[in-house]
């Protein structure tokens, strides 16, 4: 980075000429490194050993290419200045040179050497990521992409949830393995601070793994165009200390709350929900609602956001969502049910109780 800030004065700010773009490239690099703090999806702030190793090789290539750029662009600039036509020599034809085998050989061999170096380094990282056996202690999660939301299964723990992935703080022996597939079109699972993306392809299961050592919330989003609301198919990964994760698992394993004797509105809302088309698309464990076209709502109230991270999970947003999903996420696949205000209030009250 010091390399860059020194050159920065040479100016990406006034990138007036192509030969200034050296400054631009360099400034861009400096800028992006500095911007790591305020961008939650930057690869320059890896939070997982795998992302870390990608970051390492990324810097390595960035510096090699920067080096090549400086040499070649420097030569070009030199040629432009040194051999420009000057007043007075308009009629002189320079000596005609048709080629030179030695020189041409040298600029064939040097790039080959660089390529070999880069190739070997790259191969090491590829093998380190893709060619390792799954450890016994791995936690397994199945990720299913849907047109514009994410479904998560924990097959060994008996949990089904949506849109917010919870994983424990982990290490090499106890990573989280993601088996990713799609229910409809191709998507891509992309949480840059944890790992490179993995495409989510129908009729095919891909495997990815993460082992983040620090708790926190890591953001990402679908990275393969999948239709109208591709932009709002966001990803949230909650990395929790083991104890917190265990508590979360325990809560999620419970069926949905059904005793609403203390809350008449919610009880009424449950009835409205169970008698509407909602149950064709949504599942709530322990009830007649078993639809699988939309997200599982069993513990909806335990989530921070709704509609795949599109809006915070507040009663107001929830009510607006149920009333007219298109107003929050135009083009999403949940239709408006045209419920009256009373039904909207009660369903909202009911769903808000599903912790």
């Amino acid at each position, binding site marked *: 980075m010091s390399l860059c800030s020194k050159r920065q004065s040479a100016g990406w700010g006034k*990138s007036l000429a192509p030969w200034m773009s050296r400054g631009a490239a360099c400034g861009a690099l400096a800028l992006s490194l500095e911007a790591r703090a305020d961008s939650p999806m930057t*690869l320059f702030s890896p939070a997982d050993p795998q992302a870390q190793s990608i970051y390492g090789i990324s810097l390595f290539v960035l510096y090699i290419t920067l080096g090549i750029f400086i040499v070649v662009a420097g030569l070009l600039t030199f040629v432009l200045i040194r051999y420009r036509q000057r007043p007075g020599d308009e009629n002189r034809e320079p000596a005609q040179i048709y080629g030179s085998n030695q020189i041409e050989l040298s600029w064939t061999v040097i790039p080959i050497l660089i390529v070999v170096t880069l190739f070997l380094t790259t191969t090491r990282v590829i093998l380190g990521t893709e060619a390792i056996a799954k450890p016994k202690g791995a936690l397994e999660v199945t990720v299913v992409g849907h047109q514009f939301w994410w479904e998560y299964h924990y097959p060994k723990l008996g949990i089904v949830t949506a849109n917010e992935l919870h994983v424990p703080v982990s290490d090499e022996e106890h990573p989280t393995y993601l088996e990713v597939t799609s229910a409809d079109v191709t998507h891509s699972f992309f949480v840059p601070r944890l790992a490179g993306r993995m495409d989510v392809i129908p009729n095919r299961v891909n495997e990815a793994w993460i082992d983040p050592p620090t708790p926190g919330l890591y953001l*990402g989003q679908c990275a393969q165009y999948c239709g109208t609301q591709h932009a709002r198919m966001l990803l949230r990964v909650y990395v929790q200390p083991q104890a917190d994760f265990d508590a979360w698992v325990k809560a999620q394993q419970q069926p949905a709350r059904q005793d609403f004797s203390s809350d008449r509105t919610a009880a009424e809302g449950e009835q409205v929900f169970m008698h509407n088309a909602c149950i064709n698309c949504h599942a709530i464990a322990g009830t007649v609602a078993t639809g699988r076209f939309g997200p599982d709502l069993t513990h909806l109230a335990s989530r921070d956001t709704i509609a795949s991270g599109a809006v915070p999970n507040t009663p107001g947003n929830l009510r607006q969502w149920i009333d007219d999903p298109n107003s929050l996420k135009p083009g999403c696949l949940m239709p408006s049910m045209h419920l009256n205000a009373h039904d909207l209030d009660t369903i909202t009250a009911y769903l808000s109780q599903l912790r």
Partner: protein
Amino acid sequence: MSTIPAIKGVDETQATQRARTPGGVIHEWLTTVDHKKIGILYITYALIFLVIGGVEATMIRIQLAVPDNHFVSPQVYNRLFTMHGTTMIFFVAMPIVFGFGNYLVPIMIGARDMAFPRLNAFSFWISAFAGVLLYFSYLGASGLYAAGSAPDVGWFAYAPLTAKVFSPGHSTDYWTLAILLSGVGSIGTALNIVTTTLCMRCPGMKLSRMPLLVWIYLVMGGLVFVTISPLTAAQIMLTLDRYLGSHFFDTQAGGSALLWMHFFWIFGHPEVYVLVLPAFAFMNEIVPVFSRKAIFGYPAMVAASVCIGFISLSVWAHHMFTVGMGAAGNTFFVFATMVISVPTGIKIFNWLATMWGGRLIFATPMLFSIAFLFQFLIAGLTGIILAVAPFDWQLHNTYFVVAHFHYVIVGGILFALFAAFYYWYPKIVGRMMSEKIGKWHFWLFVIGFHLTFDFMHIPGLLGMPRQIYTYEADRGWGTLNLIVTIGVLFQAAGVLVFVYNLVRSYYVGKMAGPDPWDAWTLEWSTSSPPPDYNFAVLPTVKSRRPLWDLKHPEDPDSDYEL
């Protein structure tokens, strides 16, 4: 020494006199089989679509200028980027490089026309029809009486998004048919270019004396055969899926989404070279003339072009590093992709060596060429960055990729095309383009280009995916996107200045004469614009630079060449 007979004194034929009335002019252009006229048709058509695609790009950029923008709806936005990509590749870039090829290839090899003039006309008109068909989807995609809508599946149209369940209506069919038909035109023109080059060279023009431009068009033509065929096959399979119940890409019935990707990218990647090779071709003609030196290492340049042609066929899956190909597949495609940078590097170094020791004249064609060299260098380097598969796991489908390929297509190909316009316009029209306005064009476009595409890399590094109609404010991409959008204004201004220059010079430009740049290839030996038959008497050449030999009888090239 070469013999290039003067062409003065040849009578205007009756046909050209008849063409003087307005009706006659139109009839003449609609029915022409002259390679020069067809070339001009191709170029004009491409310029019209360039403006349309540019307007789409501008709307895209306005929408992305700030987070959570509501300038257009997601539906409209998705159509915009699909149409922008499809238009720019199939109805701007392809026709424009074919246009220049059509015009230049015969004349540079001392021929009077293409090998198959009528096929040539057919190819142009079928491509033109395809472009109109694509845009007719705005009216007709769901049937004229329902609302029309344009394709919205992205320009690479990944299956199964294109399946009937996910893309009902007819917009995807318009896309499919438009591409299929434009492919027919491309194959026809490629066939013509290859045949013309192999069979129609004038006496003395051995393959080893062919201008590099023609060599490259030969390679490019060959590449078109190999790449358009799988694309066409894929479109047919897709249509079978949609209408006749086959399941090639229908994942719901056991089809494969990956199969489409392979088909598309085995077309898609070599396609990049189909487009960028002509850019190299223009450089090979322009850089030597404005450096006043012969091209450095002609045999190496030919070899590099041929190598690029072949290697480009083995790199397609670098568009698929994230589909879970596994370590072996990824490693292979990393290697193939990196290797292609070697012949490309040779080209850059040879241009540098051509300029070394020369006398560089900074006329507008040369300015665009110099910018090309810098920008293509950067584009190549970001290409290497993306070839490093693990880095690509982070960058794939982000704005870094978008910035990279726009560096190739705009910073490389479009700049080379601008250079070509300024260089050959005098030949085609007979008048010079204004140098002063040309410099305005150059600087506006350079500033705009760098504002837009330099800064576009950064949101990519910060994780911004492509093809999203809006983004969250908390992502930290806002300011950068605003700068990117501002750059578009400069580029648009540059293009307007360019179009103004084209039109204005047609009427008031300085008369060019046959050889305004003191150049060395055969097209400059005939009048500007050349007569219908190009050469009154076919020339005979003895070296790669026949006009150099003519101008320097004391020191002809033929003494040095092998």
